[in-house]
């Protein structure tokens, strides 16, 4: 098996303002993201040879992207893989370029969610016997929080304070990001006193529901310098898909998610990362819930098992910390337009590696940045990890 390392590069990216975009439909969002990416790359729509669009419920085929961007009879593939949809669309686009089939392609992620009229996330489902418990995502991830506290013998009050610190951190980072949906600080007290959504997770333990889109222009690595000097190289792409093992195996523990570990292992190996804690300079991760972020600190090897809470207390993952996580505010502040989030994460790493992240630019000059995108529920995930680096 070959590695993706240094074979493709990102030469342009775009990201819409995320939020309750009552002013925009899915097409508007894609136009907004794509034209920022074109401009950033210095290319025209005519240059795009093929495209991948990640969307779960907004468009059913690749034609939505063609219609939005008026692309000229090029191949477009719609990609869907739960909440890791956008990362997978990006990944497939990278592979097509790495295979030498195309020189320059577009990867787009988009979701228009706020038109459903319901609160919370609405995921379309086909007809079924409908006997499974109605478990919106908070109830599913709360299963992991309950078990985490039990497993490590942490009183729930104490775990909730740790989780609150994660929410406070991400909200703080979001205040520095004009594209984020939520741009206000929250305090630990606010988080702890918020209404309960799915015990033990309160309102601020959950990410919001938003609309948004993000786009990346991917080229052969040896071509990238023709477009810009500060292009960003793809160093590793890992994807691991679960088959419901957690709900079938009675020894699955709910405090670590094997899909994260497998996906990270693949990506680290491709990128040549031996010690993620030391080598990864920043990470944008799938904080759909605060407990998810806590668990994946451990899954991604940022800290040892069970050490997550101590690292949170120590401020390791803050903007000023040793390994800043979710410098852009994360899903907590961007919300989670399912098909868009993965590429939105890449957008932040891309900007940070270029030193263009503005007030939230991390202090040291980053060499490697990581994105982590997770879809599904504890027990069965699509885990996606991508690693990016500056050119040497």
């Amino acid at each position, binding site marked *: 098996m070959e590695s993706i390392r240094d074979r493709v590069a990102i030469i342009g990216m775009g990201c819409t303002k995320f939020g309750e975009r009552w002013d925009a439909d899915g097409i508007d969002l894609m136009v907004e993201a794509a034209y920022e990416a074109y401009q950033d790359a210095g290319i025209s729509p005519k240059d795009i040879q093929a495209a991948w669009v990640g969307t779960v419920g907004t468009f059913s085929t690749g034609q939505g992207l063609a219609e939005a961007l008026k692309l000229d009879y090029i191949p477009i593939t719609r990609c869907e893989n739960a909440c890791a949809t956008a990362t997978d669309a990006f990944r497939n686009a990278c592979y097509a370029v790495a295979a030498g089939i195309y020189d320059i392609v577009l990867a787009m992620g988009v979701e228009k969610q706020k038109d*459903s*009229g*319901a*609160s*919370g996330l*609405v995921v379309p*489902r086909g*007809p*079924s*016997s*409908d*006997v*499974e*418990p*109605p*478990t*919106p995502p*908070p*109830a*599913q991830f*709360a*299963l*992991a*929080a*309950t*078990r985490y506290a*039990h497993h490590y013998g942490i009183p729930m009050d104490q775990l909730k304070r740790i989780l609150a610190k994660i929410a406070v951190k991400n909200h703080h980072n979001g205040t520095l990001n004009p594209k984020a949906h939520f741009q206000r600080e929250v305090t630990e007290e606010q988080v702890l006193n918020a*209404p*309960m*959504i*799915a*015990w*033990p*997770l309160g309102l601020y333990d959950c990410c919001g529901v938003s609309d948004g889109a993000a786009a990346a222009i991917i080229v052969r690595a040896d071509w990238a310098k023709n477009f810009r000097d500060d292009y960003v190289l793809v160093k590793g792409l890992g994807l691991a898909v679960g*088959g*419901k*093992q957690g*709900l*079938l*195996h*009675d020894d*699955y523990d*709910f405090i670590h998610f094997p899909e994260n570990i497998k996906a990270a292992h693949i990506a680290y190996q491709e990128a040549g990362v031996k010690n993620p804690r030391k080598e990864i300079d920043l990470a944008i991760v799938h904080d759909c819930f605060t407990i998810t972020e806590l668990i994946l600190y451990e899954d991604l090897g940022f800290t040892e098992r069970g050490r997550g809470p101590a690292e949170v207390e120590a401020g390791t993952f803050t903007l000023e910390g040793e390994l800043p996580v979710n410098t852009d505010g994360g899903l907590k502040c961007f919300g989670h337009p399912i098909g868009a989030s993965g590429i939105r994460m890449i957008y932040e790493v891309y900007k940070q590696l270029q030193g263009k992240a503005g007030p939230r630019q991390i202090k040291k000059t980053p060499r490697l940045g990581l994105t982590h995108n997770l879809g599904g529920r504890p*027990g069965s995930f699509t885990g996606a990890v991508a690693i990016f680096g500056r050119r040497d």
Partner: protein
Amino acid sequence: MPGILACGAYIPRFRLGKETLGWGSPQEKAIANFDEDSVTMAVAAAQDCLRGLDRSQIDALYFATTTPPYLEQQGSALIAEALDLRPSVFAADITNNLRGGTIALRTALDAVQAGSARQALVVAADCRMSAPRGELERSLGDGAAAVLVGRDKGVAEVVASHTLTEHMLDTWRTPQDTFIRSWEDRFIMEEGYQRVVPQVVSEFSQKTGVVPKDIAKVALYAPDARRHQDMARRLGFRPEQVVDPLFGKIGNTGAAFTLMLLVSALETAKPGERILAVGYGDGGDVYLFQATERVGEVKQNRRLVSRYAEAKRILPTYETYTRWREVWVSEAARRPPPPVPSVSALWREKDENIRFYGSRCTACGYIQYPPQRVCTKCQTADQMTPIRLAETYGTVFTYSMDYLAGTIDTPLVVAVVNFEGGGRWLGMMTDRELHEVRIGMPVELTFRKLRTVGGIHNYYWKCMPVRA
């Protein structure tokens, strides 16, 4: 003579009682949870009855109720499936009659006597509703009873019986009515219950020569506590002969009532004792049973009336009860409406959903629910044997409590359950107290109604804290 081989009961966990805010009666009554109905309670009573018994001997099932979930659709067929009875079982619903329990008993005894069934299971359950605040509401209760009848000598033998059939509009309900209707109290008592019951009992006495002093216990139907006391006295029974009618505790459980009292009597009966059971509704039924030396077996592994009656919880408010019955309609969470379940999927998945079969891999032995084609452990394909998990106990591995799922009983407790002996399942928890839910909690499964959409009652299993 055919006899009773085993019996069981089910009484819902919840009660309205003097602590219930807004109820206004010192009396208690059992009320089904929002996810229970006559079918689910019948399944629970039958499970109690059949605990530890071989179900392959059951050739017939009779389900008696005045409150069937469907006017067209067989409740007994669903109950047979949930109990994992053989597909060749004969199943019949006996509905529309308050005396349904004793009618079903007669049908079962006849089938066994005639030889068309080796064993016949009678389940009676009711969940009758009267208008809120009505007199009837105080006396009615929800519950179920089950009796297994067979040719072999069981715990009690049937000695004699007598029946009277007479049409009477005393209480009634049309398909359009939610609540029971009734005619003037004095008329329906004097010309109905208080005339018919003495008549059928006296005819029975004349026929058999059996008089009250020959009887150890009487399981006597009555519409309410006062009428019960009057009737027992009028028939010549001394208070110590009278089986506690459960008024003020459980209430009048309709079609299940007489059988419930019979079960109650058998719980404490001594060998040789005779029990008279009297049912009423469009006539009357009288049965005389005699306990055998095996009567003590009634209690083996079973909860029966006594243990179910004790394991209770008083509902804090009457409002909660009216919400459960959808008499009080509250604003739902702003979530999409639930989809109409696919009937073809329900049909295809009946072994998984109703019989609650998981699968065990014959290659590696791993138990998994729902049943899998390819083993989740060893990846061997199509080497599975079905394994019923409905009677398997489990423990809570982890759980959460959802405040937004839009259930009547918020929060919805979702639990990951590990079964004793292997296998895991993610399901809903019912009949729970929030403060008692914890990791490691022992749970059992209970057949419940998830929701009704598009006129389809969707039944499935939930877990609940182990009862009594």
